[in-house]
């Protein structure tokens, strides 16, 4: 077992533990903070895969934007902290069964797949390749433009909804 595998196992354990805390923490802000730990663990995994760009994007988008939005929404929600009811309802065993079944299905499927392994190291200029692929007509320019139009429509729509009626 080399250093890389140890780092992967430690990170994976931290991510799993944090993810478990997200769904079991009684305090919603704590759950959001555990979510940040889990997402940061994902960024570490990207670094281990030598994908620095994806790691930085992971931190910017998920921790810098989405998590702060979640925490802010929690803080603005009234009396969310006083909620002391039970965490589960009578159907918890059904949910657990379905979750276990899904996990078993995914695990069985993935364990039969042989992932191809490249012996070549990660290319130095993968970032430039990614950039060119995103704007090249042979690759991903259409998805990129569609995503841009969708996001712009969403933004204009939210402004229209939030605007004062004059």
């Amino acid at each position, binding site marked *: 077992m080399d*250093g890389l595998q140890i780092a992967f196992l430690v990170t994976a354990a931290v991510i799993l533990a944090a993810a478990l805390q997200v769904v079991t923490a009684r*305090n919603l*802000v*704590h759950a959001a*903070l555990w979510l*940040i730990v889990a997402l940061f663990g994902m960024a570490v995994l990207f670094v281990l895969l030598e994908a*620095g*760009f994806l790691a*930085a*994007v992971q*931190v*910017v988008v998920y*921790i*810098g*934007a989405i*998590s*702060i939005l979640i*925490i*802010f929404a929690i*803080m603005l929600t009234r009396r969310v902290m006083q909620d002391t009811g039970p965490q589960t309802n009578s159907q918890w065993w059904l949910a657990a069964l379905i979750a276990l079944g899904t996990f078993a299905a995914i695990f069985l499927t993935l364990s039969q797949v042989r992932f191809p392994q490249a012996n070549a190291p990660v290319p130095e200029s993968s*970032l430039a390749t990614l950039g060119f692929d995103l704007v090249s007509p042979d690759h991903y320019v259409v998805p990129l433009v569609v995503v841009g139009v969708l996001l712009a429509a969403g933004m204009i729509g939210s402004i229209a909804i939030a605007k004062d009626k004059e």
Partner: protein
Amino acid sequence: MDFFSDPIGAVRTLLENLLNSFLPAAVTEALLVIVGVIVVASFGLILPLFLIWAERRLVARMQDRVGPNRVGPEGLLQTIADAIKLLIKEDITPLGADKVVYNIAPILAVISVLTMWAVIPFAINIAGADLNVAALYIVSVGSLGTLAIMLGGWASNNKYALLGAFRTVAQLVCYEVPLILSIIVPVLLARSMSMQAIVDQQKDVWFIFMAPIAALIFFITSVAETGRAPFDLLEAESEIVAGFHIEYTGMKFGMFFVAEFLHAFTVGALTATLFFGGWQGPGVEQYPVLGVAYFMAKAFLGYFLVILIRATLPRIRIDHMLDLNWKFLVPVSLAAVLVTALVDKAIEPLNLLPIGRAIFLFGSNVVVGWIALSLVSRAARRLRQEDEAKRGGEAPHDAEAAHDAHPAPAH
């Protein structure tokens, strides 16, 4: 290896040989990385001791006072005395506070600023790390600072602290938008996100001459990100006591304090790196160590500007702060990115010298700036005329209605 042309490399080789004599190569490599981290982090943590002294003396001079001058020569040791005072103060965690989150927040605040220094190049061969996504890295660790302030404000269980945290989100998250857009411009011009490449590309012409608008917007939004005057709404003493750090005592308060001062200097360092050529200057090819002096001089000049702004401008009102961002800085920075990309691509086939490229880009920036300012002044004139028409047409006792439409500036 010559010590004066590559001091870090010389020390590194020395250490490497020393450690390799009794340790395996992998352990040496790991130890050297750790030593590098400690050196960069210590630099970032010792610097504020002098920054705080320099800032207090400078602000005092601007406000016609003397400032700290008793402890040590010219008061240089005042900050150390203050730090000792903070260390021996009682360390209070308020009763209703969320203990873990409350204690993590100041650490996170320091981490977010300190980790930025990992990618800032001091000279051609003196830099923490030359990431190829350094620009994005700076944005991503910067956003952790927002998180720290929010968590500190929420965990204190104090309504003033929470109000400060809310203002933080309104301000820091908003100003991140034009900040990121203005970082895109030097990245576009250098064709790289690496800080060393950005500095390299400024060998002939600094980016301030190619993108003055982006530089100005970067500087304004960075100052807003530090949360200092005139953008100190998140800790406005006269309104919400001390904002998010109201409950913090001792060294935990000290950590927020250090984070703020270091962030202000980081603004100067980043402005110098992105727009003022970083370590570039006459003679750096022969003596790379000179780059450190050039870089620090430029960074301190930026820091001095931040202090000057802090000492002379009154606090901006919250609606003005939001208007300035969303109605002015965001559209202008968007236009600057678009125009820079188009003009730079359009003149690429001409194969101009850097100076010619700078002239074209500077011209396009002047046009963008002129259009933006004339649009703003036209809008302001229209508002003023509406205001005057309303006041002139109505009886004096209706002045309150006009006042509601366009509130007078705060005192």
